[in-house]
C-alpha cells in the first residue's frame, strides 16, 4: 500500500497569518481520514494545502509522490476537492454541469447521469438550471461532479452539510465504496457520529497543528 499524503512539519501562510504551523501527517492509500478540530483549527487550510491551492512555506510535503513545494499543480488531476462552497456554474443544468466535469476529467458523457442518480438527485431536477436548486440539491450536484472524475484522493470540507439524512447515508456509502476500491478520502467535519462512523481514522487539529491521531484502523 502506497503513501498518498506525506506532510512533515508543514508551515503555510495565508496573507500574513500562519494557517498551518507544522503539520505532520501521513495518509496511506485506502484510508478515510476525518479531520476534526475547533473552528479555525486549520482543517480547511490543510485540505487546501493537500490540493496544492496554498503555497507551503516550510517543511516537506508530498502528495502522490510529487513535491508540493516544487510543483503543486501536478497532483491536481488525481484529486477531487469539495470546499465549503460549491462552485457550480449556476446557469447550466445539473446534467450539463456534471457532463462537463466528466468530459473535462477524461470520462464519458454518460457517466453524468449515473453519478446524479447515485447521489439521489431526482431526475426531474437534472435539466433545471443549478441556480434554481435548493442548497442540498446543489451539494448533490457538486458531489456528483466529483464522482464522475473518479479521483484517487478525495478532499472534502464538511461534505454532509446541507444534505438530508438519507443523502448523508448515501454519501457515506459512496465514500466507503471509493475507499474500498483504492481511493483515499480526507474530510473535515463537525458532525459527530455520522463522520466517526464513516472514518477509519480521526485526526484532531489545533492551532494549525496535528494534536491527536487515532490510527484506529
Amino acid at each position, binding site marked *: 500500500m502506497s503513501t498518498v499524503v506525506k506532510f512533515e512539519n508543514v508551515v503555510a501562510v495565508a496573507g500574513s497569518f500562519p494557517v498551518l504551523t507544522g503539520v505532520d501527517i501521513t495518509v496511506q492509500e485506502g484510508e478515510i481520514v476525518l479531520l476534526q478540530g475547533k473552528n479555525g483549527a486549520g482543517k480547511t487550510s490543510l485540505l487546501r494545502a493537500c*490540493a496544492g491551492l496554498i503555497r507551503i512555506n516550510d517543511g516537506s510535503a508530498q502528495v502522490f509522490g510529487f513535491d508540493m513545494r516544487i510543483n503543486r499543480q501536478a497532483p491536481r488531476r488525481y484529486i477531487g476537492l469539495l470546499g465549503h462552497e460549491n462552485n457550480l456554474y449556476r446557469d447550466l443544468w445539473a446534467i450539463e454541469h456534471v457532463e462537463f466535469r466528466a468530459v473535462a476529467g477524461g470520462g464519458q458523457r454518460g457517466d453524468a447521469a449515473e453519478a446524479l442518480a447515485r447521489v439521489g438527485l431526482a431526475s426531474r431536477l437534472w435539466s433545471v438550471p443549478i441556480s434554481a436548486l435548493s442548497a442540498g440539491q446543489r451539494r448533490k450536484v457538486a458531489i456528483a461532479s466529483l464522482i464522475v472524475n473518479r479521483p484517487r484522493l478525495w478532499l472534502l470540507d464538511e461534505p454532509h452539510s446541507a444534505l438530508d439524512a438519507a443523502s448523508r447515508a448515501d454519501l457515506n456509502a459512496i465514500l466507503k465504496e471509493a475507499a474500498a476500491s483504492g481511493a483515499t478520502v480526507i474530510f473535515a467535519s463537525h458532525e459527530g457520529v455520522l463522520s466517526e462512523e464513516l472514518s477509519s481514522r480521526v485526526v484532531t487539529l489545533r492551532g494549525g497543528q496535528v494534536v491527536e491521531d487515532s490510527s484506529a484502523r
Partner: protein
Amino acid sequence: MLAEVLLLARKDLRIERRAKVALGQVAPLTLLIVVVFAFALDANAPLLEIGAGGLYWVAVLYGGTLLTQRAFEIETEGGNFDDFRMSPIKVHSLFLGKSLSLFIQICALELVLTPAVLLLYDVQVTDWLLLIAAGAAGAVAFSVCGVLWGVMAAGLRVRSTLLPLLLIPVLAPVLLAGSRAFETALGIRADAGWSWASLMFVIAAVHTVVGLAAFGFLLEEN
C-alpha cells in the same frame, strides 16, 4: 488538447447563450455608447467621421472588458476560484479555451458594431480586407489579453474595477493601432493601414505566447 479547448469554449458559450449577456446586454450597451458619443460630440459630422475609427475601438475595448469580466465571473460564482484551478483540463487548454470563447463573443460584438458605426457616423469602407483583418487582429489581442489579466484579477479581490485598470494600459497600443488601421480602411487617411494591422497581429501574437507560457503562474492565487 483541441478537444479540451473546444469543451471549455462550448461550455462558456452555452452559459452565455443561456444568460444572454454578450448579445443581449453588452452589444446594446456598446451600441448605446456609440450613439452617446455621437451626441456628446455634438453630432458634428466631419468630426465624427474623423473619429469613427477611434470611437469604434473605444467601444470594443469597453465591451470587451465587460465580456472578460463576465467570463471570469462565471468561474468564481461560488465565491472562489478553486474549481477552475483544480480543473483536470491542462493549463494551456484552459487558456486557449477561455480565449476562444471570448474571441467569439468579441467578434459577435464587432459584427454588430461595425455596421452601426458605418451607418451612424456616415463613413464608407474603402478597404474591406483591411477592415476585417484589423477587426480580427483586435479581437484576438483583446481576448487573449483579457484572459491573461482576467485570471489574475479573478484570483484577487475587487476584480470588477481592477481588471479594466490592468487591461486598458496594456491594450492601449492595440487601440491605437486599430484606430489608425480603421482610418485607412475607411479612407480617412492614406497612411499605411496594413502596417498598423500587422502591428496588431504582432501584439496579439506576443500576448498569446506570453499567455501560454505564463497562464500556469497566473492561475495561482497565493
